[in-house]
């Protein structure tokens, strides 16, 4: 049949056409993750101790419940059910002796500054500080008044600054996530 002419109809060949669907269903591009461990034998993990410790630290951050001013209300709101912080292992704790994170939530006045320093010194190492809101960062709207400290970083080291006046709960949540990233990056530091 093929010799007789090219006019003979070709047998129907089914070619499925998915259009752009494959492109649509392509898995997302994941950046190459830095794996914290590698599997040596099934069920055995080999990794550095610092990584494990840092993972433990970042997964159970206990912030000290320490309301200074207006930002404290948003801090409470972050702890409450709507923006549940417990799912990150972040549990508010009223004593500095068992806390890991200090959230400086509000205006730091010069009268309050010695108490904040004392609280910071009472916290065991390793400890981190989140400066929440404009007032704790640089004095915020009250910076021109001379009884107000122009930023809590004048007296204690600050790890994460959360902007806003007051920051929304989502901002504080983001601040905590940033702190967790920071803990993983600084895992070599022995606190």
């Amino acid at each position, binding site marked *: 049949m093929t010799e007789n002419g090219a006019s003979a109809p070709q047998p129907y060949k089914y070619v499925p056409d998915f259009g752009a669907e494959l492109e649509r269903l392509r898995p997302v591009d994941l950046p190459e993750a830095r794996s914290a461990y590698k599997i040596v034998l099934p069920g055995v993990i080999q990794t550095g101790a610092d990584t494990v410790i840092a993972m433990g630290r970042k997964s159970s951050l206990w912030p000290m419940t320490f*309301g200074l001013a207006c930002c*404290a209300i948003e801090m*409470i709101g972050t702890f409450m059910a709507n923006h549940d912080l417990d799912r990150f292992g972040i549990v508010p704790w009223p004593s500095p002796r068992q806390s890991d994170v200090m959230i400086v939530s509000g205006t730091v006045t010069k009268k309050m500054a010695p108490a904040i320093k004392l609280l910071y010194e009472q916290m065991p190492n390793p400890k981190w500080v989140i400066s929440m809101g404009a007032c704790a960062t640089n004095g915020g709207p009250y910076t021109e008044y001379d009884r107000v400290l122009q930023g809590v970083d004048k007296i204690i080291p600050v790890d994460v600054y959360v902007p806003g006046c007051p920051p929304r709960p989502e901002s504080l949540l983001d601040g905590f996530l940033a702190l967790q990233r920071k803990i993983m990056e600084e895992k070599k530091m022995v606190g």
Partner: protein
Amino acid sequence: MTHWPETTTPVLPPDDLNTVDMTINIGPQHPATHGVFRMVLTVDGELVVDCEPYIGYLHRGLEKLSETADYRQSMGWWDRTDYLAGMCCEMAYCMAVEKLGGLEVPERAEYIRVIMAELSRINSHFMFLGAFGTDVGVLGTTFTYAWRERERIYDLFEEVAGDRMFPTYLRPGGVSMDLPENFEQRCRWVLDSARQGMEDLDGMMTGNEIFVERCRDLGPITPERGIALGLSGPMLRATGLPWDIRKAEPYSIYDRLDFEVPVGRQGDVFDRYFVRLAEMYQSMRIVEQCLDQMPKSGLVLNPNLPKTLRIESGECYIRTEGTKGEYSVYALAKGGNKPYRMKLRSPSFCNLSGLREMVVGTYVADAIVILGSLDIVLGEVDK
């Protein structure tokens, strides 16, 4: 058989073995002080002999800074005073500026202001219910229930004005923008939800016999003594005196609205709690009446406002009923676009000055409950 000699005298500690008084410091960082408040209790055993409050840990210069800024710029500092109910503070400040500058407020804007102020009052009292429950010992349960409703009111504020806590929505001469389209429907939904939340809290606290026994007959105060100490708001109304500035010296449109002033019987901690709870129902009635009566359209900001507000001279003392009591603003203008002097009469400050009288003679654990029943906001106390 033991024979007791008849001359035995009862064994009592001699006079020189009396125990000494102990001093307990509470604060400035303490979960029960609701912020940065410090009090030093002198106790004899469990009994409080003396109480010395220390404030000023949040003194951030509201009055000084108000003198340095334009009339409209100062608003941000004023709603950060009572940070549980920012709109009430904005309303007092705006009324003072309007009184000095002789500005008219459109009718629709007045209604919007009252709605916002009363929603703020509900919001603030929810915070009180949550925090007070924690003080008394219901732990976090009341807090969680109260915050569910607070978040809904915050969401409503955000829809109206763009921010949750301090929207700076009010302006001298009206409000900054009109309400969104579905506001009435949303507001009624929020009110229904808040009413349900209040009933939950009511059952959880008033229906709890331990809570009631804990609060009854604690720190009572008479109306005469309350007036002498300068108490106001729910603290004074709990003593049985229905003195509410919305009724006594009516401002804005409160004289057109129908609401009651709940009072207590003997001014103890339970009455203070219950007056606030009853006040929330009245605030809901006010908001619903405002929604019914409000003009459906119209201006919300005075169109004749000058570009820069300059006030030649004037002096006024504007009284409003804040969430904690009489929130008043003394304003003095001497030309220019800045006030010469602004003074805040903050209700928490005056209520707190009566703390010593209520606390002395009670137990240490009760002192915390009495402090919780004052419902202080430190931003307002320390200015």
